[in-house]
């Protein structure tokens, strides 16, 4: 149905038409003692450590929406490229979409140029994207990867600030995790030692922060490849409920069965050649 008040095609990208309406609605809702639904955040503990052979990233698996745990097995370590992975803290949707966009852009680049993308390139793309939106995209990311120049670990804040350090923690549980990392980090650690250190850092975040919990995921990136261990350690408080309730075939007994064959008659058949020259 053609509308006569549309004089130009709408611009693509973000649409700000409903912002004033949302602000007005929020005002009405607060007055009526009800609250607007909160977006799902990954109040999180994520940590990363550079070791001798590569980079070890770790994350917990709890996603909260307000005061409720929305997802107990959330995957916070996102794939960027075969040699780079990224942990995301902040609003869950923002981290997912941002890392997806980054991964797509890097794939296009590597197809165009025939090279494996470098970690600095990913960091620069992220920084540009996040600064453009002035922090409205709530994504704090830890990017770790191994490329031709070595093992790198970067953090990108929601406003676009970056930092290149050998060990990092982000999220609501970062202070607890950083305490463990500061105490026991040594340069050029062995892989097993680094994995234990990251596990302990995430564990302290889980114990001391309400927004982190459940299982611990570890991702080990080396020159040889990636080892994504999910879960590295399961929570002791796991309950016995299953996530899917599927009944066995044959649970419901069949009382009667009636088969009606659908008879189709070929009325007309035409063959049209496709010109594939």
């Amino acid at each position, binding site marked *: *149905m*053609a*509308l*006569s*008040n*549309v*004089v*130009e*095609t*709408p*611009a*693509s*990208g*973000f*649409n*700000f038409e409903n*912002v*004033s309406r949302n*602000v007005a609605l929020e005002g009405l809702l607060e007055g009526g003692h009800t609250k607007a639904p909160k977006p799902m955040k990954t109040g999180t503990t994520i940590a990363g450590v550079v070791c001798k052979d590569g980079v070890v990233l770790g994350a917990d698996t709890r996603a909260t929406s307000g005061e409720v745990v929305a997802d107990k097995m959330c995957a916070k370590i996102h794939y960027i490229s075969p040699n780079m992975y990224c942990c995301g803290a902040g609003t869950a949707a923002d981290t997912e979409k941002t890392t997806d*966009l980054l991964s*797509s*852009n890097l794939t*296009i*680049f590597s197809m*165009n140029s025939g090279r494996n993308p470098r970690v600095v390139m990913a960091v*620069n793309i992220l*920084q*540009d*994207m996040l*600064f*453009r*939106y*002035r922090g*409205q995209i709530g994504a704090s990311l830890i990017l770790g990867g191994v490329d031709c120049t070595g093992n790198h670990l970067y953090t990108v804040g929601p406003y676009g600030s970056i930092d290149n350090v050998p060990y990092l923690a982000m999220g609501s549980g970062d202070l607890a995790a950083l305490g463990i990392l500061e105490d026991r980090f040594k340069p050029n650690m062995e892989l097993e030692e680094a994995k234990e250190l990251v596990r302990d850092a995430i564990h302290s975040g889980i114990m001391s922060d309400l927004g982190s919990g459940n299982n611990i995921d570890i991702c080990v990136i080396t020159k040889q490849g990636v080892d994504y261990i999910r879960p590295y350690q399961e929570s002791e408080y796991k309950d016995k409920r299953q996530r899917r309730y599927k009944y066995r075939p044959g649970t419901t007994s069949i009382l009667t069965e009636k088969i009606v064959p659908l008879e189709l008659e070929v009325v007309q058949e035409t063959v049209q050649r496709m010109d594939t020259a």
Partner: protein
Amino acid sequence: MNTRGLRSQLKDSVPVTGMGQQVGAYGVQDTLRSGFSSVKNELLPSHALELSEKNFQLNQDKMNFSNLRNIQGLHAPLKLQMEYRAARQIQRLPFLQSSHLALDTLKGNDESISFEDILNDPSQSEMVGEPHVMMEYKLGLM
């Protein structure tokens, strides 16, 4: 990179009154087409990013062209802008979907994906404009 765009937002990149107000004949608000006007809605952006996003591409281009002019001289940005203009002129009529293939290749948008490609794709837009009205607006007759 996107670090120097702030100053250009304040100066001549967009007129302050141009927040989507539709002007009919005689320069007065077109009540029939766009409803009653409210001064608060028209003058101030409702979201922090509205103004900056509206002019983002313009500001980027300005910055890149001025950099190019400083590095390579006047002819380089002139030639590029001529090519941009030529690519922009071969679009279809306003109510039809044009692919912007030449323009995208010139700008380098064919090698990257951003929110403009995912959100609010014009080809999937729910609102379709009236062809005659859109042509009149484009030709400036309205």
